[in-house]
């Protein structure tokens, strides 16, 4: 494993990780706006948070500063708390309406 880390660090420039993180974030944000299933929309948010984690780790490596690893743990904890609450909310919506299509959850006036 040690060899692999060295190879990745030596041959994959930092910008690649950051570009990947931007791509992931954009896929997440676009999915949030385009997809119509509530669970998929929720997964898109998780994707955005993981893009953030990737950038934290990449910057951490670049700055030779271990703080970024700690930050990504914070993000994971918050994401887990958010998932618990979010799934509970989605469950109550499903119980009351028997649908997970976001367009059908629109009884409030626009």
């Amino acid at each position, binding site marked *: 494993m040690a060899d692999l880390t060295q190879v990745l660090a030596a041959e994959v420039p930092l910008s690649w990780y950051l570009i990947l993180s931007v791509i992931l974030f954009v896929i997440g944000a676009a999915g949030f706006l385009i997809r119509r299933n509530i669970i998929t*929309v929720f997964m898109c948010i998780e994707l955005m948070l993981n893009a953030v984690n990737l950038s934290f780790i990449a910057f951490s490596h670049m700055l030779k500063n271990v703080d970024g690893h700690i930050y990504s743990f914070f993000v994971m904890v918050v994401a887990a708390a958010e998932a618990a609450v979010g799934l509970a909310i989605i469950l109550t919506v499903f119980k009351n*309406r028997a649908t997970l299509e976001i367009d059908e959850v629109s*009884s409030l006036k626009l």
Partner: protein
Amino acid sequence: MPVSFIPTPQELLRFSPEILLSVVATALMLAEAVMKPGSRTKLAATAFAALAAAIALSAAAAADSGPAFSNLLVVDGFSTFFRILVCAAGMLVVLISSNYLKREGHESGEYYALVLFSIAGQCLMASANELIMLFIGLECSSIATYVLAGYLRDDRRNNEAALKYFLLGSFAAAFFLYGISWLWGAAGTTYLTEIRRLLLDPSAGINATVVSAAAALLLVGLAFKVSAAPFQMWAPDVYQGAPAPVAAFLSVGPKAAAFAMFLRILMTVFAPVGAKWEPVLWTVALATMIIGNFAALWQTNVKRLLAYSSIAHAGYVTVALTAMSDAGAAAAMFYLAAYALMNIGAFAVVTHVAGQGERHVELADLAGLSRRSPAMAAILSVFLLSLTGVPLTAGFFGKFYIFKAALDADLVWLAVLGLLNSAVAAYYYLRIIVVMYMHEPSQGLPELPAAAPGIRWALAASAAGTFVLGVAPSLVLDYAVASAPLLR
């Protein structure tokens, strides 16, 4: 330098409001399990007392201000102001919630626990001095309010409000977090004061493009949280769908804390590159005022109308932010305090008049309120006049200081357009008063019961506050003016 991880008593005192609120919130949930069914009113009383104690602790901490936990938190006049503001708003919300929950048959400890957790998060947002701490505070506050928005879980409107609030709130949090990540990548530190120092230092070699990108991402997240245009679309649905006391809470507590965060990030970190922010904030402020005020003109649902009005008020506060001066920060602080009083007051009347199951929240249901309940009609008129900005009410001085700060910062056009917007706002606020006093009550409305003591006290306190700030604004303004420069 050796770093100690054991907090000193001094640090614990500086963090004591948050500790107290979290401990009491946890205790409330546990207490409910062993409580006799009849004694649930004690839960509200405990939450109320905890918030009062948190205000006292904030004041005690302010007497010995300074940083805590390796500078992650800072207790200064600014954080004390917002801590007291969100705790006081929480007290008013607890007062109007107690009777509401009894009426809807959903009285339980978790409601108050969530309110307290959320307020602990908001106190943290007000006192955090580091980006990750700000994010943790923001999420503590937001996650609790997502649940509160859908508190009556069998009510379809509540479900929908919670779902929309949750999805858009998490979306915004992801943007905010991504902004933090890039700012950290560019500056190598997450401490606000350090980032400011590096931005001011040309030899630090900070990549300006990356900082601008990070600032844009942070702005998206913050604009969502304060419901500023173009990210305001969640607010009307959430305020309309959420239980009325929760809508009162959402429109004041999280918004004030989010503005505290906005002010701290803007004034502490980005003041050196303020010229770049000005056109963006200018546009956001104007768009928010216009969207809020003009959309409110067509609303027939009172909660939805108040939601658009709250968007418009976020626009006025953003005008103060655009000034990017100490006077602007102080004006924003004063405005948020005045707005908290009058908006919770207005929502308290709506909570009472709506009746069981919130069936009467249309504007038509307020027709002839002056005859059905003269006191309610009179007091709602006071709050609406204050929201309009009529002299002798808190709202007047709020707007006065904001537009004065804007003029002093040479934002003449923004001030003029803001004033025109307040004139538009007068139309829909006065329309409610006209409906209450000039229209015949519609047939079939049930008799209004007498207001519960909680509602009466909340209304009396917010009306008194609205008048006091309208006559003697210096009580709050002097403190705001003294603490605004601390942001730098």
